[in-house]
Each structure stands twice: as structure tokens, then as C-alpha cells.
């Protein structure tokens, strides 16, 4: 990359200062990540000797990762989370796009009332017990669908996509009708491609939401084999205090530092998102802008 030449001293100074500030911000974002990785590779004795602050371990150990990655439980929960992060957003996008398309039609009878119902779900929630009872009565408790159906329609996303659809030129739609397209063909061939940026952004938000969620699984799921990754990792992290109190007698003491195990779980949890995010970053940022404008 060729270095830029700045025309004046003030401009050069300005660029130096800006680069320094941004560099500090980047460092403040990277340092915690480096710390987490360093701690995850450190043995208990080294942690104690170095006051629990290790960036680069002197005698790195992979024991925490070995424990985690050889665990059948972890891989099964990753499978549940991946399935959830694929099926959930797909279902959400299909229902949300269809709903937005319908509600974008100004000639729809009762449109304003329907929009009010949608907006109301953004402002108000049913509550924990009513939601649980609905899932119970629908016999969805302890099933995978309890993790994706409650959030199947994204009300905020629906409003955003509706706005995009409404901004499609009327002439384009009329031309399409003149060509003899049906409503479904109009949706698939014209509306979806034009609203793709909004759809991608909403989809990205949904993927992240499904990936990080654990509370719904805690409430609706009894079978631990259906626990998503975040819930399994959360329970692993919660064992630290009790595990420590039982060190003397509990032979199931992990023999690996609880701190290292905790940090290793953090790394394992964020790697998938870190791998996917660079490719979908622009859509995520666009989604944030759309929310701000809205």
C-alpha cells in the first residue's frame, strides 16, 4: 500500500492523531481477546504464580481445550445451535418477508389495524408464565421448535422490510403486472431482489440472536440433549464456585484451572461467529443504520 503524502503539516498531524486514536481503540478491542486466549492456555499453577493475569503463558497447555473438544456434549450442543441458527433465521425471513409484502399493500383492508398488532408486539410482551403455558398447551415444550417458533416473526424486521418494499417504484410493479406476473412471482422475482439488503441485515441479526440465546432453552427445554451451546457453556461456567468448594473430595474435580476452562469456553463460543461475521459484516452494519433511521 503506497503511503499517502499529505499536503500540509496540520493535515499530517491530524492524520497521525487520528491513526493513534483509532489504533488505541483497536488495541482496546483486541487486548481482551488476546487475554482470553492466553488465559485459556495457562495452567492453574502459572495462573496463581502470575496473579491471574496472563497474556502469553510461559508453559502453555491445551488441557482446557482437550476437555472441551473431546466432550460429546459440546459437539451435540454445537449441532443444536447450528441447526437453530439456520432453521430459525430461514423461517423468520420467509414469514417476515411475506408479512411485510402483504402489509406493504396500501389497499389491504384493515391494514392499519394489522400494523398496530405488529407494533404492539414490539412494545409489549406476554410474560414468562403465559408464554410457558402457550408452549405447554401447544405441546412444544422440550422440543426443538420451542426455540424457533416463538421468534418466527420479527416484528421490527417486518416493519423495516415493509419500508423497503414501499420504496420500490410503483411503475416497476405495474410493469410487472402488465407482463402477467402473479403476486408470488412479483414477490420472488421483483420484491425480494430489491429488498435484499434489508433482508440480509435482518437475517444477520437473527443468526446472531439465535446463536447467543440461552434463556429460552433454559425455560422451555428439559432434555439436556437439546441444550444449545450457550446454555451448556453457561452451566459449565457456573460450576466454578461449587467445584472449587468440593476440591478436596470431589474426584470429579477437573484438574484443569476453572479460569482456563472458562476462557476456553468463551473462545469456543465466539469462533463460529468470528468466522462468519467478516462475510456478513456489511449487512450487519447496514441493519444498524436502518434501525437508527427508523
Amino acid at each position, binding site marked *: 500500500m503506497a503511503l499517502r503524502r499529505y499536503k500540509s503539516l496540520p493535515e499530517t498531524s491530524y492524520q497521525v492523531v487520528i491513526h493513534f486514536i483509532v489504533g488505541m481503540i483497536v488495541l482496546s478491542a483486541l487486548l481482551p481477546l488476546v487475554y482470553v486466549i492466553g488465559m485459556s492456555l495457562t495452567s492453574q499453577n502459572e495462573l496463581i504464580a502470575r496473579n491471574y493475569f496472563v497474556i502469553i503463558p510461559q508453559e502453555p497447555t491445551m488441557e482446557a481445550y482437550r476437555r*472441551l473438544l473431546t466432550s460429546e456434549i459440546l459437539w451435540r450442543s454445537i449441532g443444536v445451535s447450528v441447526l437453530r441458527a439456520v432453521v430459525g433465521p430461514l423461517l423468520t425471513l420467509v414469514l417476515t418477508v411475506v408479512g411485510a409484502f402483504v402489509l406493504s399493500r396500501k389497499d389491504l383492508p384493515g391494514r392499519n389495524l394489522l400494523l398496530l398488532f405488529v407494533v404492539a408486539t414490539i412494545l409489549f410482551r406476554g410474560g414468562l408464565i403465559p408464554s410457558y403455558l402457550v408452549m405447554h398447551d401447544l405441546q412444544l415444550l422440550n422440543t426443538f421448535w420451542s426455540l424457533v417458533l416463538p421468534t418466527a416473526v420479527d416484528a421490527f424486521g417486518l416493519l423495516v422490510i415493509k419500508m423497503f418494499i414501499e420504496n420500490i417504484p410503483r411503475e416497476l410493479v405495474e410493469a410487472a403486472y402488465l407482463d402477467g406476473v402473479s403476486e408470488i412471482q412479483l414477490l420472488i422475482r421483483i420484491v425480494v431482489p430489491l429488498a435484499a439488503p434489508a433482508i440480509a441485515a435482518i437475517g444477520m441479526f437473527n443468526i446472531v440472536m439465535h446463536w447467543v440465546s440461552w434463556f429460552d432453552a433454559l425455560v422451555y427445554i428439559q432434555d439436556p440433549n437439546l441444550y444449545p451451546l450457550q446454555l451448556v457453556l453457561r452451566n459449565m461456567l457456573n460450576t466454578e464456585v461449587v467445584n472449587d468448594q468440593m476440591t478436596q473430595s470431589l474426584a470429579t474435580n477437573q484438574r484443569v484451572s476453572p479460569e482456563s476452562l472458562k476462557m476456553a469456553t468463551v473462545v469456543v463460543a465466539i469462533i463460529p461467529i468470528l468466522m462468519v461475521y467478516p462475510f456478513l459484516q456489511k449487512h450487519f452494519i447496514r441493519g444498524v443504520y436502518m434501525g437508527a433511521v427508523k
Partner: protein
Amino acid sequence: MSETSIPRRRVLELGALTGTAALAGCSTESGGGSGSGDIPDDRPRPPESFPDAFPEVPTRVPEDSYGYDDLDTEVSMALALVGAFNGPRPKDPIKAFLEQEFNARIDFNSYTAEDMRNKLALSFASGDAPDFVVVPAGLRDVATALYDQGQLLNAHDVLGLMPQAAMYVTEPFRAWATVDEEMIGIPTYSTFPDVWNLYIRKDFLAEIGMDEPTDTDGLLAYARALRDKDPTPDLDGPWFMATGGDGAGWGMFSQLIAAFGHPSWNVRDGRINHPMIDGTMKAFLQFVDQLRSEDLLPPDWYTTAWEQLKSRTFNDQLGLVQYPGGNLATETYLARDNDFSKVQAWDPLGQISSPGNPEGLLPPPSGPGGLFVFNAALADDEAKLRRIAHMIDTFVYPNVNYWNVAQGGGPAIWGDAVTVKFDEKTGLNVFDIPPDAPYNKDQSLASLADWQFFGYTLRWQTFEEKVAKYGYDWNKESEQLKRWENFDVRLNLDPKPVQDLLTLGQKSEIQFALGQRSFDEWDAYVETWRKTGGQELLDSAAEQLGVQSA
């Protein structure tokens, strides 16, 4: 859906319990408990009186004690408790063993204590509740609420089915588990005996030329000597002590409160008393303020978490800690590269006296560990009730399946991989699990250990390995020390003012200790304490204990 913040979650829990109450009110069952007085004629009767203390030597009940249970009938049961690992159990040989032994289909779930609140509220509200739950002592209010809604059986009626568990229902434990003369659950012993104690560095004492302190003035002198004479000149510190409470409480310092007076509810001269009104808390905070102002504590003495504090504990930076003796021995040994002399550098302190505590009594003994509670629906399924009671009773010390469900599984599960030695004369046991035991190597077996929380206890467990035995001896020494009387087990206080006062204390006490508030304001603070719920609790406690209020 993002993680719910803690305050919102508390509102949800209260709402869930209120919802449970509303739904229960719509049902035909109302009033406290279920099945009271309707004991089948052929069900063994509960004991008519209860001992004052645990048996000297625990013994196993005869095998024919369970003749009431027809094992030819298959039963499905759902069990739940608060576990340590709470992960999935894709391979569960303990469950397979129990299903075969007891001709049952078992659905076993374990949760963290915080999750258990949500789970109990939701599951009972929806009618999907487990048949049997081990409710930890800290969630007794949840059990009380469920019992009041008619969701639980009167446990007294079930006690006859559980002779092993009944052995440990002492009169104080029975009173703790009883609300309005009905037993909401069968009280159980705690996992840990009273082995927390103060441990002092003998080598530091030798270096600075002091004897072990026997009173609070001696502790202060020791703290000053550590600063002034510095027995470790090449290292940071050593300092007197730290809390390890992560900024959320007094942590290790809590034993110091007891050195100044009774640390909880008590009776003095026929009147209810509390450390807030008799000067105990003030004296403790003045002591901490003095330690802090004279730079006798490390910079992070209040904010460091327990785990992080180990770097100071095991790097010779602290002169005094509060620890379970066995843990201190084992952790020191492991942290100091298996150097046994480092373990021997610690010594348990004896009684520490003060003007408010001339005998140097330690904090009160612990109360029950929890409650065995039974779903009220079992009143209509006697066979299932008997099977559950029979099976769970065999998990209680030292019954036949106690070791089989403890520590990830005993001899019936892992054969010769584990060793159990039980001495019938002393009631003590050794449970040896080698480092290469199956579940020490396979992470997917880690959660098998949660089975043990039905009945596991360290009260009667001893060790043969050198370091563990050394720590065990410390524990035994600590258990012999005299303690304040435990009045808390006889009280059933309204949880709301208790929580309000806890919040007030956490916010205010540290201000006095940091010198941010003058002790001239102490009386005004006590007034605030009374108005926040302290007076209400004083009156309630006085009524329950049959003494005058304060």
C-alpha cells in the same frame, strides 16, 4: 432473546410464583399441603419424636425396612435437584443401574440454584412439575410458597417410608422444616460439615516472634507486625487478610464478625437480639476500618473474587485466611508444586475472644442442607410415592446406594475402579477415586456427579492419602471448637424484608469500613435498618422464639 438482567429476573420469579398462586387458587386443591391425615393403613408410620442431634455413629437401616414397596410394578418418576455441573448426561450408567434396581423409568434433571427458582415456579404453574425435588436450604421460601398453594405433600406423612433419612431429622431440623405445624419437606443434612475456620501462617508468627492470637487485639497486633516486621521481604506483602467476596459481601471476614458477638439472630436476657442492635456489627466495622486505615490490608482486599485471591493466598501474601481445612491443605499442596511443608505452614486458629464474645465462640453451626419435597399429585399414586421414597432413602448415608450415586458412581457402577471402606464401628468411610477414574478423563461424564446431591455428605468421610488426611484432621479440630447457638433454624422470616436488609447492608456497611461514613452516624443507620424491615423482623423473630421484642 437476550439474557434477562438480574433485577428483571427477580420480578419474573415473583410474578411466576404469584401466577402459580393464582393458578393454584383456581384448582380444587386449596390450603396448605395435601394428603394431611390421609395416610394409608399399611404405610409405615412416621416417628413420634425426634432426637436433639445426629446419631453418634450412623448406621444403615435393615434391608427389610422397604417391604412396603412392590418392586414388581414398574414406575415412571421425575426427579430434580440443584447440582454442580448441570450438563447433559449422554452416558448415564447411574441412571441405568437405578432403573434396573428399582424397576423404574427415571427422568433426572439438575439445575443451578438460580435456575431452580424459575423451573419450580414454571413447572408447578403448568402442572408439569417433577415428582420429587431436593430444594436447597436457600430456596426454602419457594418450598413454603408451593406448600401453601397445595402443591406439595405433608412430608411428615412420608417420613415413615424413609427410615434412613428420618435418622437425621433432629428436633431443630424438624422445626425448621415445619410451617404452621405442617412439615413442608423432609430436612436433610448439609454436604459440608462445619469446617470453615481461620488459618494462620505459623512460619510468619515464628519469623515475627509472636504467639498465635487468642483475641481480636491479638489479631490487630499480628496484622501490624506483618506490616512492620515483614516476614517476606523479597515479596509483596504479606498483608493481614482479604475478603475474596468479589465486592459483594464480607467473604472470609464473616468469621471475624462472630469474634465480636453473635453474628445473626439470637436471644439475650429473654429478649430478641441482632448484631445490628447490640454493637457487634459496629465493632466489626470499626475493626475493618482500622485495618484499612493502617494499610494492613492488600489494595484489592474487598474487590477480589475468591478464585483470584488464591494468587495471594498461595504466594505468601496473606497472613490469615478463612477456608475449609481440607481444601486449604489440598489446594496449597497442588499450588506449591506438591511441597508438603507449605501445607504445614498453616495452622487452624482456636477461639478468638473479644469483650462481646468472651468465650471466643465461632459462627453458629450450619442448619439443614435442604428439603426433600414431594409433589402433591403423589397422593393419588401410592405405588410411585413408595418407589421414590424407597429409592431416595437408599441414597442417604450410609445406606446401600449412597456410594453408588456419589462422586460420579461407586462400585456398583465402576467396579474395582473405585474403592469404598465403611467402618461400622465409627460410621466413617473412605471413598477412594483414583485420578484415572473414567469420569476424570471424559468431560461428557462430568455431570454424573450431580446424582450425589440427593444424599452426599463429607461429615463422615475420612481420607488415607497424606495431604487429604492432614486437611481432614484440621477439619476435625475445627469441628470441636465451641460455636454460637443457631437460632436461625427456628425462624421463618418474611423473605422480602430480609432481602431489603441484605441490600441495605451491602450498600452501607462498606461505606463505614472505608471511612466514607463516620461512626457518629451509626445510630442513624440503625434507625434506617429498623425502618427498612429490621423492626418488623425483630418483632417476628421475637414472636417465633417466644421472647420479648427489642
